[in-house]
């Protein structure tokens, strides 16, 4: 079995970057990753970049633009799109390409410039990740889709709005020390429950924000890692990706996300690890309920007990979940988030060793990518 490692990471600050363009944030993330890896740009052989929608800026074909701006021409580039999981998919495509033996060093990135689009256009664009004909046409929003799941989870398992609020509270607390995060201030359960309702039962502070940001990693095969004398490689131990029904109403249950269950199983099997072995998990808390679903579907607790798991603070004591702030507090530039999650796992592992898992969801769960990384593939 060949092995692949992340050898360099870089990102922009996440937030409302009014003065920055899509091309400039893409470039910054890429340059930082190259500098972090300590390599030359010309050593990169291919670029995969996640980007959810050209409708935010009007710009499609971002992969070619990013290669051009960073002087990487004429390497092959591909823009990956699986809604909010686009960046994790770019990462996985880069991983598979390296495993194929075709390349030795690849850049995987993600970028989204959301704030160029004003008002309800953002909601409409995001809803492109749902079923346009049978969800979007009735005025459903993404908050609405997750609200429908939340309502059902409350109904089936007695999950409370307070438990969901605690997800946001914990993520805000964790982001205070994250220099890249959009929101670096703590909030309380009351703050969440008193914030305006976006789609009942979800309040404003149950929702991840609209964010600009870009993130990039440099990935290399074991041979290249050795040749480049990389001192702190973080190895990919397992990777999985799965699809599920696009529309919520086509699923047998609204309280689990099958694509997560399947993608996690693939990643666990490949790495020969169990949920208990994971030290850090970056999960896709685009809405607070989704962190609870992720905790359950990734096997950190039994189905239906995710709310209690959060309430009992096991997200800090048993396993560190979203220890850098999650999508809620770091911000969620949709097509960049998956790489940002990988970067935070890499930083954790570089600092403290251990094993980390990143779960990136596309849409309301029709796509899920799970990657497991560690400091040592031989463990």
């Amino acid at each position, binding site marked *: 079995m060949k092995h692949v490692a992340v050898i360099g990471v870089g990102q922009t600050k996440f937030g409302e970057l009014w003065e920055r363009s899509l091309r400039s944030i893409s470039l910054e993330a890429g340059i930082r990753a190259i500098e972090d890896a300590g390599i030359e740009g010309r050593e990169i052989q291919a670029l995969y970049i996640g980007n959810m929608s050209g409708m935010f800026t009007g710009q499609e074909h971002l992969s070619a633009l990013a290669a051009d701006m960073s002087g990487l021409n004429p390497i092959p580039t591909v823009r990956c799109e699986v809604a909010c999981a686009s960046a994790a998919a770019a990462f996985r495509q880069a991983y598979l390409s390296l495993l194929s033996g075709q390349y030795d060093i690849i850049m995987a990135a993600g970028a989204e410039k959301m704030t160029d689009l004003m008002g309800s256009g953002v909601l*409409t664009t995001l809803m492109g990740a749902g079923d346009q004909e049978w969800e979007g046409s009735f005025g459903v929003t993404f*908050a609405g889709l997750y609200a429908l799941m939340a309502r059902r989870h409350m109904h089936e398992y007695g999950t409370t709005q307070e438990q969901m609020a605690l997800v946001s509270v914990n993520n805000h607390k964790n982001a205070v020390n994250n220099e890249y995060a959009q929101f670096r201030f703590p909030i309380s359960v009351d703050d969440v429950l008193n914030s305006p*309702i976006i789609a009942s*039962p979800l309040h404003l502070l149950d929702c991840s924000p609209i964010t600009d940001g870009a993130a990039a990693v440099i990935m290399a095969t074991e041979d290249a890692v050795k040749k480049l004398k990389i001192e702190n490689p973080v190895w990919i131990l397992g990777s999985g990706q799965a699809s599920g029904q696009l529309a919520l109403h086509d699923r047998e249950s609204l309280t689990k996300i099958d694509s997560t269950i399947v993608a996690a199983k693939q990643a666990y099997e490949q790495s020969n690890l169990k949920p208990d072995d994971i030290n850090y998990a970056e999960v896709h808390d685009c809405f607070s309920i989704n962190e609870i679903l992720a905790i359950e579907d990734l096997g950190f607790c039994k189905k239906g007990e995710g709310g209690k798991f959060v309430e009992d603070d096991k997200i800090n004591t048993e396993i560190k979940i979203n220890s850098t702030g999650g999508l809620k507090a770091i911000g969620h530039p949709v097509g960049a988030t998956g790489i940002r999650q990988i970067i935070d796992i890499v930083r954790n592992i570089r600092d403290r060793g251990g094993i980390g898992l990143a779960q990136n969801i596309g849409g309301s769960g029709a796509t899920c990518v799970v990657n497991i990384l560690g400091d040592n593939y031989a463990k």
Partner: protein
Amino acid sequence: MPNKSSIPLSWRLNKSIYRLVGNKCKRCGTFFFPSRDICPKCRRKGDIEEVVFSGEGEVYSYTMINVAPKGFEQQTPYLIGIIKLKEGPLITGQIVRPNNNIEIGKKVYAVFRKLTEDSKSGIIKYGFKFKIKD
């Protein structure tokens, strides 16, 4: 923008969205709404036939949308439900102004309403919504 101005798109959906026309697989008995070209269980062995759904069902989940996408701003706030149809499938739709408190399990029936309009000069989209039974 996606659900804007595509006249062919809304025209293609007219029949199903006006009258809840879906289909079923005669082989395994599964009902589909929206209709499917092949039965995902029986695949090419399936035998698909058109069905007009009764529109009767119950609330499976619901949310009140306070922040609306384009074309729905004027309707805010409005209720979206996932409805479990009597025939089996779940479908998404708006629930019209409820005359009593909404809960999971409440019985509903389909009504014909205006869904959205592109603009004052644009196409008007009609279709089903659901109403809580009194």
